[in-house]
């Protein structure tokens, strides 16, 4: 079976006037469906750039990128948007919720861009909010939530389109250790249920929650190791 994600000599070089900066080079690796991968590295190593390219938010300047076995380097902006919309879920360090919208509206946003009718949007979004244990906050404006709650809303939003893969960029970076633990626990549980998860972090305890750690240093893969992941118990718990 084809890997969910596969790259061949992926490179990203930023050119600014005469100076070019190599952010990524010779990235050749793959991620299978159902994996929980942590991409780690010091800041400036290129790990975030890699995640952005894998998440179809940015384009490589060299090499090949295969998503579900198809080379997508030359996809149009709209085709990229469609992949992001239907196959990928994002969880960001800064949550990136729209503060004027309610929890429900935020979670339902990807479905709106997919063109799903309002009734069905609300139904699916409510299920996801229930899953992350925020049913009693459905109609809150997200600006009124705590950091941990915001990240759970973001996870619900990432899940709402039933994506193939979830990219989490430093998802615990803006959270205290307790809330961070809850978020990590969620991600582990999602992985248990078969979701493919890619997490970018510079914190080793976060990386240890995964099943495979890819070390990036100076834009190259330094080490790619399987680990036996350390269980993090989601203290507030997923609704089963």
């Amino acid at each position, binding site marked *: 079976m084809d890997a969910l994600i596969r790259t061949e000599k992926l490179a990203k070089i930023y050119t600014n006037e005469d100076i070019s900066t190599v952010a990524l080079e010779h990235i050749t690796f793959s991620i299978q469906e159902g994996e929980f991968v942590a991409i780690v590295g010091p800041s400036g190593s290129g790990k975030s750039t890699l995640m952005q390219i894998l998440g179809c938010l940015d384009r490589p300047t060299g090499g090949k990128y295969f998503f579900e076995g198809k080379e997508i380097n030359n996809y149009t902006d709209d085709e990229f948007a469609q992949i992001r*919309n239907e196959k990928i879920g994002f969880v960001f360090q800064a949550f990136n919720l729209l503060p004027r919208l309610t929890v429900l509206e935020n979670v339902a946003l990807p479905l709106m861009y997919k063109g799903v009718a309002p009734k069905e949007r609300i139904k699916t979004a409510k299920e996801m909010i229930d899953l992350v244990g925020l049913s009693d906050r459905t109609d809150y404006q997200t600006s009124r939530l705590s950091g941990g709650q915001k990240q759970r809303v973001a996870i619900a939003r990432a899940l709402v389109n039933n994506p193939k893969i979830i990219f989490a960029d430093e998802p615990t970076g803006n959270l205290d250790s307790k809330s961070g633990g809850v978020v990590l626990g969620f991600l582990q549980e999602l992985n248990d249920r078969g979701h493919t998860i890619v997490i970018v972090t510079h914190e080793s305890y976060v990386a240890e929650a995964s099943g495979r750690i890819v070390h990036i240093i100076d834009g190259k893969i330094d080490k790619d190791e399987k680990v036996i992941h350390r269980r993090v118990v989601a203290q507030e718990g997923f609704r089963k």
Partner: protein
Amino acid sequence: MRFQDSLITAKKGISVHKNRSALTVLGIVIGIASIMTIMSMGQSAEGLVMGEIQRFGPSNIFLLPGRQPSGPTDAAGTLLNDSLKQKDFEDLQKKSNVPGAKNIIPYVFGYVTTSYDSEIYDAMVMGSTELIEKNFDLSVSRGVFFEMRDVEEKEKVAVIGDKVREDLFGNIDPIGEKIQMKNQKFRVIGVLEPEGQGSFIDFNKAVIAPYTTVQESVLGIRYFNRIVVEAESIEKVPEVIRDVKSLIRSNHNIDDPEKDDFFIQTQEGIVDQVKTITGILTVLLSSVAAISLVVGGVGIMNIMLVSVTERTREIGLRKALGATNGDILAQFLYEALLLTGLGGIIGVILGTILTFALSYAARTFAGLDFPFIFSVRGLMLGIGVSVSIGIVFGIFPAKKASKKSPIESLHYE
């Protein structure tokens, strides 16, 4: 993305900054309200003037001395021209010369101070024949109108307008009394019915007398200010015009029509002229209002650009969640369109209220018979223009928003 969702998203975008949105559309509101008012008032004024013109009847042909005025400064030349003489009038009356003519009515007029006892009134003195009564559809409330015999015998008799009566006589019955004009005494034989204002000629302020008397004793002239030729029917108007022209040319020894010292106006011609004038005025005033619309449009564009920059992160996030460039374009374009559309609707309402108030004021304070007209043309133009402004000034910011790279936008501080 569904169209309704784009609209709802745009609506939410605007309602975040209510005050800012309101101030932004003010320019559009003022512009549309002005255009709406100008067009409605223009139509009302045109209607008012048309009503007056139509009073002459479509079969009336006006023969005027001088040249067709080419502009407002030219008009004086017509008034002072003396080319229409008694012989022209008499020849026009001969059936063989102008077979299609029913009536020939000559006019002379001028402003003269009239007095009775110690009371003074500056009246417009009109000299004509007894046919003026029918020609202008006049009627007397007291006394009688003068007759053909009075014209022939140069009788010093006068029919006065109601305002003249009021100012000179007050409560005294004027019939039989003598008023003085240019040291000549005229016997008042009739008083006109009071009539509404707004006419070219305000008969309330007029003194009407036989033209023979007015020419000789009051104005001291031997020509006519105009001669009205009434055709037997509308169909005969072109034929009558041709006959009148050739008669006057031969009377004045003119071979070349370019050198005519007279000209002819028909109701149709005057209607066209008035329409041209009101049309030009409306366009002119509307262009001034259009400037406000352009300024308003630039304001919209400015605020949309600010909004796009402010919401860079939001744009990045929406794109990350699957919004296409088109979705983002639509969101911001609809915001601009909603703003200008809203401005257009408020402008139309405001313009209508303003028009109503102005026409009410014209009726109440100026005594004009000024109708309130809701200009459908103004409505269509207002809505059309405001939507176009939304598109023209909204497309650039919206394009800018849609082209933003998702990753750079997400990291925008």
